[in-house]
């Protein structure tokens, strides 16, 4: 029977992070269970003010299988071009809104979550958790 395990994504050990307008924030590294067979990531964003129409917040997952070229420790994609885009959350023109998405991710060795706040003027409070399905 499969088991489940919830993991909190953290930013410098905090459970959430304010991402200012037009900037990105990368989470701490999360390490998967060795016997994880599937995993999903839930992202929650709460606006700290009113967004303009078409403002979006994007979530990217940067996975690592380890060290591809033997040069150092675990390595991760450098840019969002090579990361896996999980979701693009459109922040409609409503103050203090909270939006969430759930996306499948690859349960390899470890990974990082990157939040890209594409708003020009409003910061966002981001948080996330991972649910692993473990195969005994």
């Amino acid at each position, binding site marked *: 029977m499969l088991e489940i395990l919830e993991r909190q994504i953290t930013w410098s050990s905090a459970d959430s992070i304010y991402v200012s307008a037009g900037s990105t924030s990368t989470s701490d590294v999360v390490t*998967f269970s*060795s*016997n*994880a*067979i599937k995993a999903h990531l839930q992202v929650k964003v709460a606006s700290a003010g009113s967004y303009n129409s078409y403002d979006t917040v994007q979530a990217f997952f940067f*996975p*690592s*299988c*380890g*060290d*591809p*070229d*033997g*040069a150092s420790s675990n*390595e*991760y*994609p*450098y*840019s969002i*071009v*090579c*990361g*896996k885009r999980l979701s693009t959350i459109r922040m409609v023109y409503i103050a203090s809104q909270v939006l969430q998405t759930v996306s499948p991710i*690859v349960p*390899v*060795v470890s990974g990082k979550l990157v939040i890209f706040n594409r708003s020009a003027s409003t910061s966002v409070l981001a948080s996330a958790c991972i649910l692993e399905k*473990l*195969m*005994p």
Partner: protein
Amino acid sequence: MQLTSEELQVLFSGGVYTVMGSGAVGFSDEFAFHDDTIAAYAHCKAALSGAEAEYTNFKASLSIGDPDGSSDVASPEFPSFSHSPLLGMVQHTYGQTDQFVVPIPVAYKGRIGVQNHSSTYTSSVGICIIEKRHPRVSQNKIEVTWNGGSRSYLVSGNTSSTSDAFTFSDNAIAAFVGLKVSNGGTPVAADYVDFYYAPTLGDPDGSSTAEYPAWAHAAWVGRCSTYASNPGVVFAVITPGIGGRLIAVYNPSQAVTISASIREKVLS
């Protein structure tokens, strides 16, 4: 007993990375998946030696072993670069070094094809793979036969051939097929064979034995062009039902020999 993760370093001539010259195309060393691997992910990294809006391609050249014989260990056969599906690319437009992770089918053996599209700079390439292994999983080879038991089948003319029916193990959870076409003459551009998978789940209407889709309703699994490489070898993922047949539709200018084998992952 439980699922475990294991890192497999992909080597290039024995080294953990290689430097691809400008415009170069090459392959990694061969590597073998464990029999008990049920999922795998490839991590591909490329670093261009200078700033240029170009990219480095990675392709999966996967093998089920020997499609037309039993020399799986000594003579596995791999798709050529042109017959290998794209895993992904590192776009150097946004940075000279980047990397990505992508699921990769669990074959019998494999190698990774790399192409440096830069005409100016070298690309340093490294790859590792994570295998998810479970001790209750093993693999089994199914040799597809044609025309009543032949491992290889010589065909000619603009027509098609259907393999003998094959049967999966009851506890099969995944399956992969290797397809091979050998052209005895000098191939021309239109010399290719399309392969289709006609699976069966049994008898839909209770009127007879297992029934199979005809070519028009079968699933296309791959095209072997002997012009691109002779012999042409293609790898594809198929769904293990009860069993199936392969249908080869060919249009070569001369006779070709077709063959195929399947690897199934079984859970005990």
